C-alpha cells in the first residue's frame, strides 16, 4: 500500500533530483553557467518525461498523484514556460558578477517543481505542498534581484503576507473539508453525519477564496500588480504564467472530482464578471507595462474561469487552447520587455519609455504588437482563436451575463493594448531612454519562436490542438452532474472528425 | 494504575531542589579534590552545610529589580527556567514502578519540548535586563541552546528507532539485553555533548563567560532570582545525567542491587563526570562551539540515523 502511495510522476522525480543536483553543484563550486545549464537540462529532461505514461496507479482511488493527459498537458506548458523564463533571465544572471545569483535558477527550478506537483496531485497533501513550494520560491524569486530593483523587497513582503493569508484560509477550508469527509483526496466537501451543514459550505467557500486569492481573481487581486512590478521581468512572467497555470489546473481537477455546490455557481459567476471587468478597468489606469500585464492577467484569469464555468462539448478545447494562447502570448510580451530592458538597473517598463520603438527596433515592436493583439484576441494570433473558443463554450451554456462581461472586457482590453502599440508608433524625437542596444540573440530568438507559435497556432489551430489531444483518453475524470470539462467527449468528437 | 500519592507529588520538586542545592557543595568539594585544594570545609561536617548557608544568604538578600529592567519579564524568566527543568523530571523513570506522569507515550518528546521552552528563560532574562552584557549573553545562550537542541533531538532518534517508542519506560525495558551505549555510541557522544551545551555547563558555558560578559544573561540578577537560575543549572545537570542513564545506560536495570540504587548510582557517576569535565577542560571560543555543533555533530547525528535505520532494516525479519 505504501508502494502504491509512492507512485510519483516522472517529471516530479526529475525536477527534484535536478534541484538537489544543483544544490550540490552550488555547494561544490559556485558557477552561474553551471547552475543555469543544470537548470535547463533538468527542465528539458522533465519535459521529456511528461509523455511517459505509467499504466499503473493512474486513476486509482488511493493515489497521491494522478498522471493523465490533463496533467501532462499543463505540466508541459509549465515546463516550457519555465524554460522560456530561464532563457529570459540567462543574460541578466551572467552579467551580474557583483552578486552571487546561483540561487536564482535553483529557486526557479523549485518553483517549477511546486507547480508541477500541484498539477499532478489528486490529494490535498501534495497539492498543498506544491502550492507552498511554489509560493515560497516565488517570494525568494521576487526578492532575488533586490540589488537592482529597490521595490523588490517590499513586493516580496507584500506577497508573503498576502499569500500567507490566502494559504491560511485555504488550509482552514481544507481542514474543514477533511473534518467533513474524513479524506484528504480531492472531492468537494459534502456533509456527513455528526457534522453541521454549515461546515461543507464554509469549507468550499474558504477553499475557493484561497484559490481565488492565488489566482488573483477580483476581490482578491490587489497584490498582483504590486508584486509583479516589484519583481524582475522574468519573475513577473513566472508569476503571470506558471503559477496561474498550476493553480488553475488544480482548480479544474478539484472541481472535476465531484459535484459542486449549487450556490457556488452564482458566486463564481459574480466573481468572474468582477474579475473580467475589474482587471480590465484596472489595466486602463496603468502607466507601467508590467503592471498593465498584471492587470490584464487578472482579466485573462476571468476568461479562463468563464470557460471553466461553461461545461459542455466545447469546454475542454477552450481551456486547453486558451491556456496555450495565454502562455505563449504573455511570454512573448515579457521576452520583448526583457530584450529591451536596460541591463541590470531599473527596467524601463514605463509605457512612456516605449515611444518610437517601431522606428528604433521595428522587429521587436512588431513582435510585441502581435503578442499584444493576440492577448486582445485579434487575428492572426492564437489568442483570437482562444477567445473564440471561450465564447463558443459560453454560448453553448448560454452564460449571457458572462458573455456580456466578455464583450465589454474585450473592448476595454483592446483599448489599453492598442494604447501600448500606439505609443510604440509615436515617433520619439527626443529618445528618453536609450535602450540597451546590445544584441540579445537568445532573447530575440525566443521572441521569434514564440511569435511563430502564436501565428501558426492562430492560423492553424487544428495543427496545434491535435498533438495535444492525440487519443481518446479521459483528461479529467467526470462524474455525474459535474461542471467538469468534458474533454473525453470533445476528443472523441475531434478524432471522429480528423480521421478520414 | 493508581495515581501517585499527593505527598509524592509535593515531595518530588523539593527533593530535586534539595539535590541541586547539595550539588553546589558536591561540585565545589570535588573540584577542590581534583584541583588539589580544599573547597568549602568550614560549615557543618566537611562543609556540607555550606549549601544551606548559601540558601539562607540568598533568601535574605535584597529582592532587587533594576529600575531599567522590564519588570514582569524580569521576574518571570528565572521561574520559567526552574519550571521547565522541574517539569522534565516528571517523566523520568527512576525505577520500574512509575514516574509522576506515568508511562507517558511521548515522554521523550515532552522532555525535548521542555528543553526547548528552557531557552525562553535565558532569552527573556537577557532581554528584560536591558543591559548589554545580559543581552549578549542571552543571545549567545539562545543560539547555543537552540542549535544543540537540534542535534540532541536527532541523536536521540537512534534510540527511538531501535525501541520504536518515545516512552522512556519502553526505552529502558528495551535495554535489558544490551545498553544502548553500545549500538548507539555515536548517538551517545552527540547527546552527551549536546546535553552539556544545553545546560550551558562548563566547558560550554559561553553564555555566562565571565571573562568577557560579566555573568552573561543573569548579570543583573541577584538574590533568590539569581539563585533560581543557579539551582536550575544544577538541576539541569541532574536531569541530563538521569536522561543519559535512562537512554543509554539501561536506566534502573542492573543486577543484585535494587533498581533505584542502580539509577542513582549511574546518575551520580555521570554528575561526577560532568564536574570532572569542568575541572579538566578549557573553554572553547564561541565560534568553535558553533562550528562543532553544525559542522560535526549535525552530520554525525544524521549519519547515526541513517546507519541505525540501515542496520535495523537489515536485521528486520522480512
Amino acid at each position: 500500500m505504501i508502494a502504491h502511495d509512492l507512485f510519483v510522476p516522472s517529471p516530479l522525480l526529475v525536477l527534484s533530483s535536478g534541484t538537489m543536483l544543483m544544490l550540490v553543484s552550488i555547494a561544490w563550486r559556485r558557477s552561474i553557467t553551471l547552475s543555469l545549464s543544470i537548470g535547463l537540462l533538468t527542465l528539458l529532461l522533465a519535459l521529456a518525461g511528461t509523455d511517459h505514461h505509467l499504466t499503473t496507479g493512474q486513476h486509482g482511488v488511493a493515489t497521491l498523484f494522478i498522471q493523465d493527459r490533463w496533467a501532462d498537458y499543463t505540466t508541459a506548458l509549465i515546463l516550457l514556460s519555465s524554460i522560456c523564463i530561464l532563457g529570459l533571465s540567462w543574460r541578466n544572471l551572467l552579467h551580474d558578477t557583483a552578486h552571487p545569483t546561483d540561487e536564482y535558477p535553483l529557486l526557479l527550478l523549485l518553483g517549477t517543481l511546486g507547480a508541477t506537483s500541484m498539477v499532478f496531485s489528486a490529494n490535498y497533501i501534495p497539492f498543498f505542498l506544491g502550492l507552498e513550494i511554489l509560493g515560497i520560491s516565488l517570494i525568494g524569486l521576487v526578492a532575488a534581484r533586490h540589488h537592482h530593483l529597490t521595490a523588490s523587497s517590499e513586493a516580496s513582503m507584500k506577497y508573503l503576507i498576502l499569500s500567507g493569508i490566502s494559504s491560511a484560509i485555504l488550509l482552514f477550508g481544507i481542514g474543514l473539508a477533511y473534518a467533513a469527509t474524513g479524506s484528504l483526496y480531492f472531492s468537494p466537501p459534502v456533509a456527513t453525519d455528526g457534522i453541521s451543514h454549515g461546515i461543507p459550505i464554509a469549507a468550499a467557500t474558504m477553499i475557493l477564496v484561497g484559490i481565488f486569492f492565488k489566482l488573483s481573481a477580483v476581490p482578491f487581486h490587489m497584490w498582483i500588480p504590486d508584486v509583479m512590478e516589484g519583481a524582475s521581468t522574468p519573475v513577473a512572467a513566472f508569476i503571470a504564467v506558471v503559477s496561474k497555470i498550476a493553480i488553475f489546473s488544480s482548480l479544474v481537477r478539484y472541481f472535476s472530482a465531484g459535484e459542486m455546490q449549487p450556490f457556488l455557481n452564482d458566486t463564481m459567476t459574480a466573481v468572474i464578471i468582477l474579475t473580467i471587468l475589474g482587471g480590465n478597468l484596472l489595466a486602463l489606469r496603468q502607466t507601467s507595462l508590467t503592471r498593465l500585464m498584471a492587470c490584464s492577467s487578472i482579466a485573462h484569469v476571468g476568461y479562463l474561469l468563464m470557460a471553466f464555468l461553461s461545461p459542455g462539448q466545447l469546454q475542454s478545447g477552450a481551456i486547453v487552447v486558451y491556456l496555450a494562447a495565454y502562455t505563449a502570448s504573455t511570454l512573448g510580451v515579457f521576452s520583448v520587455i526583457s530584450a529591451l530592458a536596460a541591463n541590470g538597473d531599473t527596467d524601463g517598463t514605463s509605457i512612456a519609455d516605449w515611444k518610437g520603438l517601431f522606428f528604433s527596433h521595428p522587429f521587436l515592436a512588431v513582435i510585441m504588437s502581435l503578442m499584444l493583439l493576440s492577448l486582445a484576441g485579434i487575428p492572426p494570433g492564437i489568442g483570437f482563436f482562444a477567445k473564440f473558443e471561450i465564447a463558443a463554450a459560453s454560448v453553448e451554456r448560454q452564460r449571457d451575463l458572462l458573455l456580456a462581461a466578455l464583450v465589454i472586457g474585450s473592448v476595454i482590453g483592446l483599448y489599453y493594448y492598442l494604447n501600448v502599440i500606439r505609443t510604440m508608433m509615436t515617433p520619439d524625437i527626443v529618445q528618453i531612454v536609450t535602450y540597451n542596444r546590445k544584441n540579445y540573440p537568445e532573447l530575440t530568438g525566443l521572441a521569434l519562436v514564440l511569435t511563430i507559435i502564436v501565428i501558426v497556432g492562430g492560423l492553424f489551430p487544428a495543427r496545434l490542438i491535435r498533438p495535444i489531444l492525440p487519443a481518446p483518453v479521459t483528461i479529467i475524470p467526470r462524474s455525474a452532474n459535474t461542471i467538469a470539462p468534458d474533454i473525453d467527449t470533445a476528443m472523441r468528437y475531434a478524432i471522429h472528425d480528423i480521421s478520414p | 494504575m493508581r495515581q501517585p500519592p499527593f505527598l509524592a507529588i509535593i515531595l518530588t520538586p523539593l527533593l530535586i531542589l534539595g539535590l541541586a542545592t547539595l550539588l553546589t557543595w558536591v561540585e565545589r568539594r570535588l573540584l577542590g579534590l581534583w584541583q588539589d585544594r580544599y573547597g568549602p570545609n568550614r560549615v557543618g561536617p566537611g562543609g556540607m552545610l555550606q549549601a544551606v548557608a548559601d540558601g539562607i544568604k540568598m533568601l535574605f538578600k535584597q529582592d532587587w529589580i533594576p529600575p531599567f529592567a522590564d519588570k514582569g519579564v524580569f521576574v518571570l524568566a528565572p521561574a520559567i527556567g526552574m519550571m521547565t527543568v522541574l517539569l522534565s523530571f516528571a517523566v523520568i523513570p527512576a525505577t520500574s514502578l512509575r514516574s509522576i506522569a506515568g508511562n507517558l507515550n511521548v515522554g521523550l518528546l515532552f522532555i525535548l519540548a521542555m528543553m526547548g521552552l528552557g531557552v525562553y528563560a535565558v532569552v527573556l532574562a537577557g532581554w528584560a535586563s536591558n543591559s548589554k552584557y545580559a543581552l549578549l549573553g542571552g543571545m549567545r545562550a539562545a543560539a547555543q541552546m537552540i542549535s544543540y537542541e537540534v542535534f540532541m533531538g536527532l541523536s536521540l532518534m537512534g534510540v527511538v528507532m531501535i525501541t520504536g517508542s518515545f516512552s522512556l519506560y519502553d526505552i529502558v525495558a528495551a535495554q535489558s539485553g544490551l545498553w544502548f551505549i553500545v549500538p548507539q555510541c555515536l548517538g551517545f557522544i552527540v547527546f552527551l555533548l549536546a546535553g552539556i551545551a544545553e545546560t550551558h555547563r562548563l566547558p560550554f558555558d559561553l553564555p555566562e563567560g565571565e571573562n568577557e560578559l560579566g555573568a552573561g544573561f543573569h548579570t543583573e540578577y541577584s538574590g533568590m532570582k539569581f539563585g533560581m537560575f543557579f539551582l536550575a543549572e544544577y538541576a539541569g545537570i541532574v536531569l541530563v545525567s538521569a536522561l543519559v542513564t535512562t537512554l543509554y545506560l539501561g536506566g534502573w536495570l542492573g543486577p543484585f542491587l535494587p533498581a533505584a540504587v542502580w539509577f542513582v548510582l549511574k546518575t551520580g557517576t555521570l554528575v561526577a563526570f560532568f564536574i570532572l569535565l569542568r575541572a579538566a577542560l578549557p573553554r572553547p571560543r564561541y565560534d568553535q562551539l558553533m562550528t562543532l555543533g553544525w559542522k560535526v555533530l549535525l552530520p554525525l547525528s544524521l549519519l547515526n540515523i541513517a546507519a541505525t535505520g540501515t542496520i535495523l532494516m537489515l536485521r528486520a525479519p522480512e
Partner: protein
Amino acid sequence: MMDFSDIRSLFVYAAVVAVLLACMMGLSAVTGTRRNGAAMGRSMSMPFESGIIPTGSGHLRLPVQYYLVAMFFVIFDVEAAFLFSWATVVTDTGWVGYGAALVFIVFLAVSLAYLWRAGALDWGPRPRVIPATDSGKGHVL
C-alpha cells in the same frame, strides 16, 4: 509494554511546582532586606558594565548570524519532526519507507553542505587576508 499514562498527575505536579516557585519568590521578597533613599547606591540603578558608566541603549543590534542560527534551528528542527514520525515505525514501513527517509536525510545533508559552503555556518569575523606586498607573501591574519 506498560500502557499507563497519567496526564492528570502531570498537571497536578505542574501546579505544585508553580506554587513552590511562587513561594520561593514571595518568601525572598518578604525576607529580603530593603534599602531606601541614600542607602540605595546610585550604581545599583545602572546596568552593570564592569564599572564603566553605560552609554547608549541596552538593546544592541546583533550580528546577522544569530538570525541565521535561529532560522537553521527552525528549519532543521522541523525536518527533525519529520524524522521523528518515521523513527517509531522504521521496520513497519519497510524498505520503501526506509528509502524515503534515506532520501530525506540525503536531502538534509545536501542542504547542510550547501549552507556550509555558502558560508552561512561561519561564525565570527571572516579571516582577513593581508594582500601580498613586495616584502612578503600575503597571509591570513
